């Protein structure tokens, strides 16, 4: 329900996964507040990310019913982003499933290249290899953006350079190894 300040407290029907500390552990983190009428698309996305991260942190899997309740209890606008949240919290899948899904558009998902396209092209790898079915997977759009952010930003793990810079000039196999590891560590690909 919307409060006087025009913000809503998210209420979801959720299925908690059993976790250590469920009995007598610390109380669950409060759900994020979401604006009833966000001022911009950026504000909408920020709220969607906060909902997805909150659900992830407390180990929840949102049921299909939750999508309806998000719309009814919080704000209608977030309903259109429900597939984004659902995709964000999806269980990891085998590689062949992610690859075969690449040809079928799904809301809240993107086609992701295991070996990044532009840097690979810049290093002289051929399009046939970059755009091959083995290199294309369908993943959550929000996780796709997180992986892109990780590739683009400086990182202590790579001597304060970005992973993208680190991989410059490296062979295809090294790029595949890092790209697959990113998918596994993101909880997208079954190890």
């Amino acid at each position: 329900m919307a409060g006087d300040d025009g913000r809503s407290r998210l209420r979801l029907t959720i299925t908690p996964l059993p976790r250590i500390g469920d009995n007598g552990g610390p109380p669950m983190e409060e759900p994020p507040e979401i604006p009833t009428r966000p001022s911009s698309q950026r504000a909408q996305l920020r709220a969607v990310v906060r909902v997805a991260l909150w659900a992830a942190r407390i180990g929840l899997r949102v049921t299909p019913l939750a999508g309806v309740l998000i719309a009814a209890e919080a704000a209608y606008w977030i309903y259109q982003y429900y597939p984004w949240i659902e995709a964000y919290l999806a269980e990891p899948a085998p590689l062949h499933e992610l690859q075969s899904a690449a040809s079928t558009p799904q809301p809240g998902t993107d086609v992701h290249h295991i070996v990044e396209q532009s840097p690979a092209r810049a290093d002289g790898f051929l399009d046939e290899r970059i755009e091959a079915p083995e290199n294309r997977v369908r993943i959550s759009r929000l996780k796709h953006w997180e992986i892109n952010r990780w590739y683009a930003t400086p990182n202590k793990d790579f001597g304060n350079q970005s992973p993208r810079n680190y991989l410059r000039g490296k062979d295809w196999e090294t790029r595949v190894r890092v790209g697959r590891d990113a998918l596994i560590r993101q909880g997208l690909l079954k190890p």
Partner: protein
Amino acid sequence: MKSRIPQNPSVEELVALFVTIALEQEEANIDFDTKRFNRLFWEMDKVEGLLKAMPGDKRSALVPLLQHPNLEVRLRAAKSTLAVAPEAARATLEALTRITHTPQAFDAGMCLSALDQGIFKPT
């Protein structure tokens, strides 16, 4: 932008600023604001460098942050204490990887891979 690092900072001031920067990094991540994240990264690098240069390597003052309630603070503290408290820092990274579907689990996992492959050698 004016530096937030005070003249002749104390250990406590640097640790407090480290926490502030980590929390702002989390916000920058939520906004997918790479430019802001990058600026904060280099600011944190400077703070860590100042702690490292202090007599006795005062990065050890970041070790209590491994228990911080915020996941991003825990992550940044773990990466910054691998050289001074390797076991506790690594245990924190491993614990973060178990909080699945969070950016911190992802970053912590990639850090462990870099450590195990010898790409990242904390000094």
